[in-house]
């Protein structure tokens, strides 16, 4: 019996290990290839590089106009995530505290439709709207679209989390004469921290890695995001294929660092985002 157990766990580790290798090898390849010449990478794909020169990264950094593209991506992600948290938490709160009114039910149903249907179907109408509003080639365009598209799920999460916060906590503030609005920001909002973290993490991943939105709405180069720079540069013909790898790494590096630093929080965020959903 005991022997059987040991065999079982060895087998389990073996299988999990193979899966881990399958996941890690491409990532390892992505990173080591940045330090190799084309021939070296073709001959010894899995070997450690013979020299660690950052020259290729410097070139990629310049070619991608990295600081500018990084800043654009950062502004879009930061403002969108902030906007989602502010608007969705207020909305989810009000919808929960006035759950039985027709207005609340109607609004909730309408917003829920945004979870089921991908916005990409109406991208042409969106394109037209952005043009008519003179928002084309402005970061604002992508920010507003990102907020609108990701709001529904956030409203849903906030609404269900608010229901776990007892109304009595708010009543004390009310007796002291605070209005609904003030009560929300002073009392309830700080208690929403776990959901705020979840919403922030899920949306940071989604919005930072969104390629399609910027592709349609940010067509001038000085407004583009990191991924568009990757797309632009890799799309061009190059015989020196390994020189493209630093660009790919620079494309994923910010979120990879974010993940490595806050791995537990990121996984926790994804987990709790789904348990309530």
């Amino acid at each position, binding site marked *: 019996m005991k022997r059987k157990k040991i065999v079982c766990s060895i087998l389990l580790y073996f299988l999990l290990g193979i899966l881990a290798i399958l996941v890690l090898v491409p990532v390892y390849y992505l990173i080591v290839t940045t330090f190799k010449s084309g021939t070296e990478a073709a001959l010894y794909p899995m070997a450690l590089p013979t020299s660690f020169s950052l020259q290729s990264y410097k070139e990629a950094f310049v070619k991608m106009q990295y600081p500018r593209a990084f800043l654009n991506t950062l502004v879009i992600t930061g403002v969108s995530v902030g906007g989602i948290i502010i608007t969705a938490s207020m909305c989810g709160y009000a919808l929960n505290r006035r759950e039985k009114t027709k207005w609340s039910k109607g609004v909730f149903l309408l917003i829920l439709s945004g979870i089921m249907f991908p916005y990409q179907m*109406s991208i*042409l109408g969106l394109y037209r709207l952005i043009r008519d509003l003179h928002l084309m080639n402005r970061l604002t365009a992508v920010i507003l679209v990102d907020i609108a598209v990701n*709001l529904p799920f956030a409203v849903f999460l906030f609404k269900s989390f608010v229901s776990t916060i007892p109304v009595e906590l708010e009543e004390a503030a009310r007796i002291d004469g605070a*209005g609904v609005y003030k009560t929300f920001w002073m009392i309830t909002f700080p208690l929403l921290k776990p959901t705020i973290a979840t919403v922030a993490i899920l949306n940071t991943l989604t919005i930072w890695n969104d390629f399609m939105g910027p592709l349609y709405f940010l067509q001038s180069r000085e407004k583009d995001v990191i991924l568009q720079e990757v797309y632009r540069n890799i799309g061009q013909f190059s015989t020196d294929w390994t020189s493209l790898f630093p660009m790919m790494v620079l494309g994923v590096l910010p979120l990879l660092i974010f993940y490595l630093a806050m791995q537990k929080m990121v996984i926790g965020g994804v987990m709790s985002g789904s348990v309530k959903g």
Partner: protein
Amino acid sequence: MRKKNKTDRSATYFIMTVPALVIFIIFFILPLIFTARYSFYNWTNYAKEITFSGLDNYKKLLSDRTLSKGIMNTLQYAIINVLLQSLIALPVSVALNSKLKGRNIFRAIYFTPAVLSTLVVGYLWKYLLSASDYGFVNQIIAGLGLEKVNFLGNGKTGLWSIILIEVWQWFGWAMVIYLGNLQSISDDLYEAAAMDGANAWDRFWHITIPGLAPAIKINLVTGMISGLKVFDIVLATTNGGPAHQTETILTLMFSKFSDGNYGYASAFGMVFLAVSMLLAVVLLGIFRQWERRLD
């Protein structure tokens, strides 16, 4: 005085829903109406004015051979991808939910691809799967004495390659969702079943799987929806080729858009709406059946 106070409060609640509602209506609902409208118009980049053209765009759609290919591909990407993801993620999450040493490291590793950009993942695999000398996967295949495969160079293997790349990237995400759900299944159930003499397989089948119903539902629905949106990865690996064999609804829409055929691209958007509604109805039907059986 008291009554006035109460209406004030209701008004504040109402106002608090307004920002979200306004942004959602303007940037989600309105564009949908616009798109529906423009699908009946001859709106192009080169025509001087936009004219009503009735069903012309839809007639053109029907005779467009790439369309049915695109729809079929999109459905295949969405459905096969979601099933394969869960097929891997489910047993893995059950294994990692036990008191296994190193389980946190495994979790962290499996989730890593999910934080990478899909576009970059596409480019990376394009090199890995290349049929040129440097294609790593083909080097292994050749090393085993087999014939090289031009994975992305033909329709059938191209489609499967893209699906497998997506599975590689996203099974960790599905795993995390299953793990979250597994923690909520009470140990008592397992203990009681063990007392009744149920073996591991019985317990998995009769406790774990029904207990995981919510997570299975979430994974299938969200996976299906994001599967319908497959775009970046196709753009990066095959760009819809060869000969439109790996095209999806969104890549087709983007190429009509790039050509300046905006009205026609709008009609593609409407097709996309129809396909996602159909899928949603089918999924809901399946879940209802399943729930009935569980009861």
